[in-house]
């Protein structure tokens, strides 16, 4: 499902990096994929996935998600928001999460199925799903 885009060029290089990383970490599983991306805020976003191509979401997407989450949860300025930030750790309850999903739907003109909404537990997961849905929409 990897589309030809800047995101996946990044994926290409990160494969080499992941091989290196696996060596350093001493992991023996050859199927582990590590996708590394850098967000605009300079925080590395790291995700591992098994048997699945994982392209890190666009930095702009991540930033927009962060903005919406920060507003919805009324986070104090000193609360650091990273792609790895989990909504529950930021104090979001179920109503907050659904409100966030709805705002993301409106901001990106997408529709998130209820079944998928349970997979959105962090900024990164939201951004990844958004980019997939936006991509699907543009292909339709």
């Amino acid at each position, binding site marked *: 499902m990897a589309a030809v885009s800047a995101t996946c060029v990044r994926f290409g290089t990160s494969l080499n990096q992941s091989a290196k990383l696996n060596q350093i970490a001493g992991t023996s599983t050859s199927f582990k994929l590590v996708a590394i991306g850098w967000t605009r805020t300079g925080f590395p976003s790291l995700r591992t996935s098994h048997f699945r191509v994982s392209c890190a979401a666009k930095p702009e997407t991540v930033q927009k998600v962060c903005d919406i989450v920060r*507003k*919805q949860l009324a986070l*104090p300025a000193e*609360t*650091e928001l990273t792609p790895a*930030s*989990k909504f529950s*750790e*930021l*104090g979001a*309850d*179920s*109503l907050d999460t*659904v*409100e966030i999903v*709805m*705002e993301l*739907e409106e901001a990106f003109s997408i529709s998130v199925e*209820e*079944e*998928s*909404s*349970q997979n959105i537990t962090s900024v990164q997961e939201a951004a990844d799903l958004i980019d997939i849905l936006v991509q699907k929409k543009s292909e339709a």
Partner: protein
Amino acid sequence: MFPYMRGASFTMKLHCFDKKFFNSSPLLVPVQPPSRTETHFWYVLPDEVKSEALLRKYRELLPQCEEKKVDSMRGDELRKGALLARALVRTTIARYQINTQVSPRSLEFTTNIHGKPEVRWHHSDDWLPPPLHFNISHTSSLVACGVTMDSPIGIDVEEKQRAIKNNVLSFVRRYFSRHEVEFLSSILDPAVQRQEFLKLWTLKEAYVKALGRGFSASPFNTFAIRFGPAKEGSFHLSGNSNSEACCKESEILVESLDSSTHDTSTWQFALLELAGSHYASICRRKDIAPEGKASVPMKLKVWKTIPLVEDKIVSGTDSAVIIGGLS
């Protein structure tokens, strides 16, 4: 000194730490577990827990993995709320003295296949764990735990004044059932509409949590909460001038809108106004009386508590006003 300890074997089986714990905290007062028809509801107001020493005591109740989870919360108030939730559930279940070997710290928790937390009792040849169920909910200003015997339970609490960032009607059109959209659309005052939305939200959340299958397995638009006319002999509402629109003494029903197999007539609800500031919903299975008689109305006991310090029964007072359901 320890009237609730039965037999010398109890002290010998206690872990050294737990023995010290009971010696220094005689205020773990035992409570009679709920009967099959009873629902227990305990709540803590975080603002009333100010002692650092007490918060440290709560920390000592947690296994390392739970402490780590508490510490992963981003912010002092969030950490405190998470800590209180764990302390509340551990002390409450321990107080039911289901098993003399149980202390708040020794309790183990696990999750069902959908991720719903439950107690992991240690079975033995001569002891079957009781069917004790619990469910937790919290907002920044209130932490609650509901307990039942032999019935799944789901609870949800929300602040009455909670702001909804999205437009309420857009939100419910997206997520709720048509009946509920119609109901909320008919309320013209935006403040009342928001409060009725919050009541509905907590009832729907409580139902999904009682089902124990997670939000995604029971999408909110596949079932509708309806307010029916008050049943004869329903719980009498103690005067509350803030009672809004619809559900004064009403029966609360859930109706399934898809072809799901679960029997919605077996669930009963209670909707409360707690401490004047929160809505709380409780959902559990009805206890069907024998010989096909009408099911027994929910008997609800509500405590305001500070774990390890004090508790006060508040059911029937202004701190716990029933605004719907129970039958």
